[in-house]
């Protein structure tokens, strides 16, 4: 038993000798606390910039997407033009002459006028006269 204790003591001496100079900190307790506080403050300051920077970045990204969308839609304006759509549905080609005719129809949508316009379009003036 005492042999065991002697061995333990020898082990403790060996380990303590190995650690003799290794375990000396370069800073005292209060210095370490001060350095720790400084680092914490620096981290807080760095963190304070993250939110505003992210918000500005997100806003800029939204603005770019919005501008690109507006540009794209304005290039599609003709396709959204009501007159063009209706002209296409009624079989007219999308020329300015046809659009003028369409304007005239909307101003006077009587049957006679419409038939006259149709025949005029089909070059059937003779038939109109016959009728």
């Amino acid at each position: 038993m005492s042999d065991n204790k002697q061995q333990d003591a020898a082990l403790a001496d060996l380990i303590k000798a190995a650690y003799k100079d290794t375990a000396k900190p370069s800073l005292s307790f209060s210095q370490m606390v001060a350095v720790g506080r400084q680092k914490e403050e620096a981290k807080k300051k760095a963190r304070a910039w993250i939110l505003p920077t992210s918000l500005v970045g997100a806003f800029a990204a939204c603005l770019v997407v919005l501008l690109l969308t507006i540009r794209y839609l304005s290039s599609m304006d003709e396709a959204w033009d009501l007159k063009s759509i209706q002209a296409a549905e009624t079989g007219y080609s999308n020329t300015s002459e046809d659009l003028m005719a369409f304007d005239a129809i909307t101003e006077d949508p009587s049957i006679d006028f419409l038939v006259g316009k149709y025949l005029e379009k089909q070059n059937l003036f003779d038939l109109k006269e016959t009728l």
Partner: protein
Amino acid sequence: MNLNLAELMTALHDASFSWALRCCDFKRDLAEEVLQNVYLKVLDNKALFRGESSFKTWLFSVIRVTAHEMRRSQMSKIIGNEKFRRMDVAEEKSEETLDVKALFSELSEKQAQLMELVFYHDLTLEEAAHTMGISMGTASTHYKRAKEILKQKLKGVA
């Protein structure tokens, strides 16, 4: 600042640093950073001492857990980084560190930690187990195996 806690930590400063070194694989920069964080945690009541064990045992547990967390985050940040290389060079230059490393070279990390707590910091096996967050049975097994290995080494030295 809680004066009582500050006094206790001042008294344990050297021992805490050597334990932090062990938990940080003898990287002095990291050990100092760990200790700074631990002191702030304790002083700002982020880590609360409830008196369930001795203050030393509790403080060493906080150091072990903090070192584990920081090593994990540091490793992911600094692998391949210049800072990492500088820390390695600084470590190689310390002959004392090599002494300690040579002494525990044949022990596992847990065994080395246990031996340091028992033989260098004079904790009981139960306190050491509590500090390391392992059961008494596991601590006892590690202790016996490590002691056998170190005794063989001791015979070699003698």
